[in-house]
């Protein structure tokens, strides 16, 4: 029984470890591949904690700031973006009822805190030991410092050393890894070395077709592939005998990780935090691995499996080896947790000096002496510390007193106190003020600033909405010229506003996937796109197919497309080959000058010319979508056609038979034979094969290959059939989809003659973040297919018949159109014009005119927000400018995207119609009267609101700390592995948004504040939903999202407090409730 017990024990430990890693991975967010960029909260996994606490964790593990630097908030205050009254209100909970007198002036605790915020008194400053910069105030500062000398005392050096040693012992394993500790104490670069190694391996392993030469052995998994290759490396990071050590590692990554944790002596209770710290050292790569590990159906994951366990097993091996090496060589101790803590305790003086030296806090001569002692392993630490205490500590204390004096002087200036009165002030009072300042460190300022900042915006927006509600009771009674539905995206708001201003058009907001959860394959593409929010799953597949009357054009289109594709492939292969580039540069390099000069000097003309050329060579095809389910016979036909195409392709590839000799009969006979499972070819097949020049042996082996490698067998057929049957929607599904969509947006009556479902997409050049500008509700893709699907469904007469039974009667003269807005150029493209009835041509023409007008007005408005745009006063200039931005390959900011988003309004358009919301608000149409069961509101709060909150938080964190939570400047971005971007040639996968997306120079363009959700619905209904969903409780109770409701029953605005109570806003002054 012993071996069995042992294996159970091992398996239990592995499972336990996997559990620990799952929890440890909470601090890192998933990283979606960039081709379908998904906005998300980088601290999403910690949303079960209050916002402030999560921000602290983010600082602890990732080193990221959760609030803007104070000086930017101060700029907002000076510019009036933050109101003084809001700042006072936000500060109020922190103010104590204390005061003292400086001269004739009474200074309260509140005055000091306010001055701390306004003047930046609490900014930590490294006071130089010898301040040589001339300053007229130096004499005064010296006198104040002299006043402080008797009262402002500092702890003894021994006490300070003890405190530091105890603090570091406590931090070790929780906030500080052993590798970090070595770097901070011994001046090593272990973390950097390990990161470099992990970047190298992850970059090679996780590549998705970007690399010309793929990493070998990836099918073994990350750990296996690393083990197989790293064993051949010569002393990576200077690790001695690395080959032997790697080859001796266990086969299972869990075992290797446990071995490393044991070797490092990490106590069991610290392992989760310790592993979190290891993951957050490279949050980008770790986040991508986390995402991939959870996507079991992802083809790359199926082919080359990866997970955090494997990642950590590799990382911890490097940690253990390098820490051991550094500790032995430099300190003569084991590189283990217990040995390191013992060293800190027993050699605290040496430890202190080493830490100070690495941090650059020692005077240069002392730093050299520490280096000498460290190098010689001498025992002169105590004398050196004694000298330090005698020579440096008094200077440090004097510098600290001067620092305190400077703060007092700044405070006096801020409060308008005569500076000379500070000299006369009682030293105890001066000390008290210094203590008040020090008790309010800058790290505590962020929440105060943010609360005040948000309060200002809330007051403004809610003020606008409250003013509007008085007129918003009844919609216009006449039939509108058109109705159009746009994505809730903030970029739709200006367009809708302008369209409504042009003529009597009604607009609605709805999540851009239009309730169509589809997996979509465009015509000519080999891969599907997932056209729905990433938090959902698709049931149906839709394909784009050419319209049936285009058979002749289809053949021409296909052959030309194949030629273009072959040309591209040839060019790519020539570029990537080892030899050919040497010749290619000389021979073909010149031709590249045309696009270079064209794109650079005449981008608009060049684009027009290339488009024309493309259309000339490969004419576009009119297409439609497979919205309806296939009949069984059609399914069989599609399956047979797909299999025949596979057989034809395989025949050419494997046997080299020319296509002219491949007859349809031969293909069908081969397909049937492969499906039948019989080995011996029948006489008709043999005869056809002989005519094609295939021997019987070749035929037999080819049939076997068809079964094994090309999936022409019964089992694969049934899978294919099942997939094909997922194509399209049943009539019931179509009715449900249209009914849900129309009810959610509140469009159930007064249909116009034309109803436009308008998706959105974007165009930009040389922009890895292109998909971030597309529709988030469509999984980072363009929403065109979804709009077309919904329009086709709604135009289906059988669907309309069924809808009448559900209470929605669509007039027979109502036609649904699909379109797409290009958010970079503001142009609207309409699809499927063939389906528009002739009776609606005039309406369509008029609508198109108005859409163009609205687009021009939107461009004009947007041009005012670009810092580098000419302040165009004419619409044509504005249109030309935005078009140029979209094709400029040097443009780092083709559009502002979703930057500036602040609020999400769920309610009727009447609430917001005519208001200039500056393109900052997500607008979702919702009429509570159409939702007696509360089902629709539930969907809105748990799906679109979640997406909006992810977008909001992505922008928030990218703006407050772009280096940690964002991806830094676009200038240095390089695409890696077709999955993400790195800064420069070697870095972590960069998270979040680029600096140019959220910042305008040094100031944020996106004003970072938490999402404000405004719902027009009875409070009881909202309360029930909050009680039912954890995600809503996390949002509102943990202050991730602010919730305000307009209760239609009493017409009063209420704010939902984190405590779970409602606070009527008409009865409370904003000052009183903004900080609740």
């Amino acid at each position: 029984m012993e071996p069995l017990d042992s294996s159970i024990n091992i398996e239990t430990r592995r499972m336990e470890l996997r559990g620990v890693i799952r929890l440890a991975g909470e601090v890192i967010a998933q990283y979606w591949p960039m081709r379908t960029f998904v906005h998300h909260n980088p601290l999403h996994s910690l949303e079960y904690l209050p916002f402030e606490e999560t921000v602290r964790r983010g600082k602890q593990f990732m080193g990221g700031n959760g609030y803007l630097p104070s000086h930017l908030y101060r700029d907002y205050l000076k510019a009036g973006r933050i109101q003084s009254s809001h700042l006072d209100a936000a500060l109020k909970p922190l103010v104590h009822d204390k005061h003292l007198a400086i001269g004739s002036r009474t200074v309260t605790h509140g005055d000091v805190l306010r001055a701390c915020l306004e003047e930046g008194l609490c900014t930590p400053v490294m006071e130089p030991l010898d301040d040589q910069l001339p300053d007229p105030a130096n004499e005064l500062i010296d006198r104040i410092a002299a006043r402080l000398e008797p009262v402002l005392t500092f702890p003894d050096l021994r006490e300070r050393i003890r405190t530091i040693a105890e603090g570091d012992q406590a931090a070790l394993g929780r906030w500080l890894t052993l590798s970090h500790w070595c770097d901070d104490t011994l001046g090593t670069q272990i973390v950097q070395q390990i990161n470099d190694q992990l970047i190298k391996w992850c970059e090679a392993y996780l590549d998705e077709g970007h690399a010309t030469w793929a990493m070998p052995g990836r099918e073994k998994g990350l750990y296996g592939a690393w083990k197989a290759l790293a064993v051949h490396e010569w002393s990576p990071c200077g690790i001695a005998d690395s080959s032997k050590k790697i080859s001796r590692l266990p086969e299972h990554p869990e075992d290797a990780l446990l071995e490393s944790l044991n070797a490092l002596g990490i106590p069991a209770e610290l392992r989760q935090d310790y592993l979190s710290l290891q993951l957050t050292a490279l949050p980008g790569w770790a986040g991508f691995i986390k995402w991939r590990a959870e996507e079991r159906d992802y083809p790359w994951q199926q082919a080359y499996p990866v997970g955090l366990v494997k990642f950590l097993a590799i990382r911890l091996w490097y940690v253990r080896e390098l820490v051991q090496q550094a500790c032995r060589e430099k300190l003569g101790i084991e590189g283990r947790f217990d040995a390191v803590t013992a060293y800190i305790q027993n050699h605290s003086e040496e430890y202190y000096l080493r830490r100070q030296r690495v941090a650059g806090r020692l005077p240069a001569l002392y730093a050299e002496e520490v280096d000498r002692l460290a190098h010689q392993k001498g025992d002169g630490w105590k004398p050196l510390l004694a000298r330090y205490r005698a020579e440096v500590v008094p200077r440090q204390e004097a510098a600290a007193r001067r620092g305190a004096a400077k703060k007092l002087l700044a405070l006096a200036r801020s409060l308008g106190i005569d500076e000379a009165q500070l000299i006369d002030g009682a030293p105890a009072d001066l000390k008290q003020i210094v203590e008040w300042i020090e008790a309010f460190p800058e790290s505590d300022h962020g929440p105060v600033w943010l609360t005040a900042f948000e309060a200002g915006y809330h007051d403004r927006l809610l003020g606008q909405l409250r003013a509007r509600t008085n007129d918003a009771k009844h919609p216009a009674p006449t039939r509108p010229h058109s109705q159009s539905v746009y994505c809730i995206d903030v970029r739709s708001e200006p367009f809708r506003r302008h369209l409504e201003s042009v003529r009597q058009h009604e607009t609605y907001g709805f999540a851009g996937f239009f309730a169509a959860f589809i997996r979509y394959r465009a015509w000519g593409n080999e891969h599907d796109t997932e056209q729905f929010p990433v938090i959902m799953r698709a049931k149906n597949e839709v394909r784009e197919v050419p319209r049936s009357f285009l058979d002749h054009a289809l053949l021409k289109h296909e052959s030309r497309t194949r030629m273009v594709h072959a040309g591209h492939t040839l060019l790519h292969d020539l570029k990537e080959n080892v030899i050919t580039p040497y010749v290619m540069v000389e021979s073909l390099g010149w031709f590249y000058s045309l696009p270079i000069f064209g794109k650079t000097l005449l981008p608009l003309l060049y684009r027009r010319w290339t488009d024309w050329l493309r259309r000339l060579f490969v004419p576009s095809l009119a297409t439609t979508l497979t919205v309806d389910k296939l009949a069984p016979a059609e399914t069989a036909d599609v399956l047979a056609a797909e299999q025949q195409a596979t057989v034809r392709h395989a025949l050419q590839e494997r046997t080299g038979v020319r296509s002219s000799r491949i007859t349809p009969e031969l293909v069908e006979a081969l397909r049937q034979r492969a499906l039948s499972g019989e080995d011996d070819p029948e006489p008709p097949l043999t005869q056809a094969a002989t005519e094609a020049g295939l021997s019987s042996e070749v035929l037999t082996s080819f049939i076997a290959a068809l079964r094994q490698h090309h999936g022409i067998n019964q089992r694969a057929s049934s899978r294919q059939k099942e997939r094909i049957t997922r194509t399209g929607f049943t009539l019931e599904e179509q009715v449900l989809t249209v009914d849900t969509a129309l009810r959610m947006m509140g469009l159930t009556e007064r249909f116009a003659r034309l109803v436009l479902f308008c998706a959105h997409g974007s165009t930009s050049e040389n922009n890895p973040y292109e998909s971030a500008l597309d529709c988030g509700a469509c999984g980072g893709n363009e929403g065109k297919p979804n709009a077309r699907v919904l329009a086709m469904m709604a135009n289906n007469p059988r669907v309309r018949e069924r809808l009448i039974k559900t209470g929605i009667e669509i007039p027979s003269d109502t036609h649904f159109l699909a379109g797409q807005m290009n958010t970079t150029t503001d142009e609207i493209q309409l699809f499927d014009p063939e389906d528009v009835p002739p009776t609606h041509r005039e309406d369509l023409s008029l609508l198109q005119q108005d859409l163009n007008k609205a687009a021009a007005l939107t461009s004009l408005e947007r041009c005012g927000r670009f810092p580098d745009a000419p302040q165009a006063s004419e619409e044509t200039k504005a249109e030309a400018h935005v078009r140029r931005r979209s094709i400029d390959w040097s443009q780092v900011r083709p559009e502002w995207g979703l930057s500036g988003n602040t609020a999400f309004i769920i309610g009727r358009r009447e609430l917001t119609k005519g208001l200039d919301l500056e393109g900052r608000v997500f607008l979702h149409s919702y009429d509570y009267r159409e939702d007696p069961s509360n089902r629709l509101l539930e969907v809105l709060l748990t799906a679109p609101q979640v997406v909006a909150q992810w977008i909001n938080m992505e922008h928030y964190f990218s703006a407050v700390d772009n280096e940690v939570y964002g991806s830094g400047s676009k200038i240095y971005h390089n695409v890696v592995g077709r999955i993400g971007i790195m800064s420069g040639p070697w870095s972590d996968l960069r998270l979040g948004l680029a600096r140019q997306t959220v910042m305008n120079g040094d100031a944020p363009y996106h004003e970072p504040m938490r999402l404000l959700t405004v719902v027009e619905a009875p409070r009881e209904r909202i309360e029930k939903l909050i009680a039912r969903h954890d995600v809503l409780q996390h949002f509102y109770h943990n202050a991730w999202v602010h919730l305000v409701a307009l209760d239609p029953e009493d017409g009063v605005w209420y704010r939902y407090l984190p405590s779970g109570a409602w606070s009527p806003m008409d009865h409370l002054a904003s000052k009183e409730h903004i900080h609740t």
Partner: protein
Amino acid sequence: MMDGTLASWLLAGVPLLGAAFSFVVWSRPDYLRNCSVVLSILSLAAAAGMSGSLATSPENLLLIYLLPIAACASLLGQPVHKNLRLSWIMTLLFLGLGFVILTSQHVVGQVCLLVLLSSLIALLYRHHTKLWPISWFGIGAYALAVGCVTISLVAAPPLSSVTSLLACAILLPLVPFHSGYITALTRLPGSLPSFIVLLLPAIGIHSLATTVLTVPDVAMSTMTVLALVSALYGSIKALAQSRIRLLLAYGSLSFFSLFWWFVAISRTITPQSVVFLAALSLVTSGLLMSWQVVRTRYGDDVDPQAISGLVRRMPHFAVLFSLLALAAMGLPPFGVFTGFIGMLLTTALTSSVALFVMMIVWLAASWYILDMVQRLLFGRERSDLRYEDLRRSELASLLVVLLIVIALGIAPSSLFGITQQPSNAETVKESVSWNR
């Protein structure tokens, strides 16, 4: 026409008298600093005015012009602080002594050199600290220089030549006599390091010009080997330094050693080598002034590791510092590049070992200098540092140095009064064949 000796003393009189009278404003550091700057400008004007009367070679004339400029720039770059007053007065004193040494007759110049070396010893002793015991070697090196100069005054050739050569190797640093130079650059306060980094090599080259013709061949062969060793040693030591002043001291040592090598194999001092030495000294001086800018803000003995991210908040400083660093790396169009290429073209380069050493020196310089720039200017901006860009006087001081270094690189040598004709015809012949 004014007598050369009289002109020499008149020229030296401006800074020397100024130094003496500056004690009058001792209690007003701002006045003292400004007076010192004005006096150095007057010295430059005097040098320009009396250049025709001075009994000195054309090469020396360039150095005579540069000395007051370096003094002026060094003084301008200083913060007004009472602790630095002595360094300003000593700068004027050294400037006056430098004028005398470069322009006077043999004995007078040597006596002044003894005074200068003695002053240096006194200053180094005053600023000695137990934490920097190596400074004893520096004091010892200058004491040795005093001995050598004294012997060269009283002894006959070849002893006087050899001791004079040794003194030159201390002034124009060469391993193993470099400790004085390293210590002076590291330990001297205020404006002195950035001034003497030009003054001492200038005096060294002045002495070497006469000594090199009389030194025995065996001594010069030894110097050739020492120069190559010294160049390598300086580069390696510079690579290992974390302190800026040490890095600059060792880095310049390696380049001065290249100069030594050229002199040792050609046994002559060409105008191009003077340009090289002058440019190198000035660039090092400029980099020391740049470091002084940092020290002014963050403390005299700040550890460079504590400073990073200056580029965004101190853009003027960053630009000038970067340009000086490029100049120090020997990139065109700065004087170091021009001087070095000039030396190459006027010297028969027959040793592949020497070529290899030069390459190492150049590559190492590009490594440690860029690393220094990267550490100070880039990296994460620290929130606890007060960043303040260059003040006007600091900007002027760095700008003056940079412009002079560019001028040395692009202006014709004749502009500085240097003849283009090399003094050794054979060298030209050989250089032509080498160039083929």
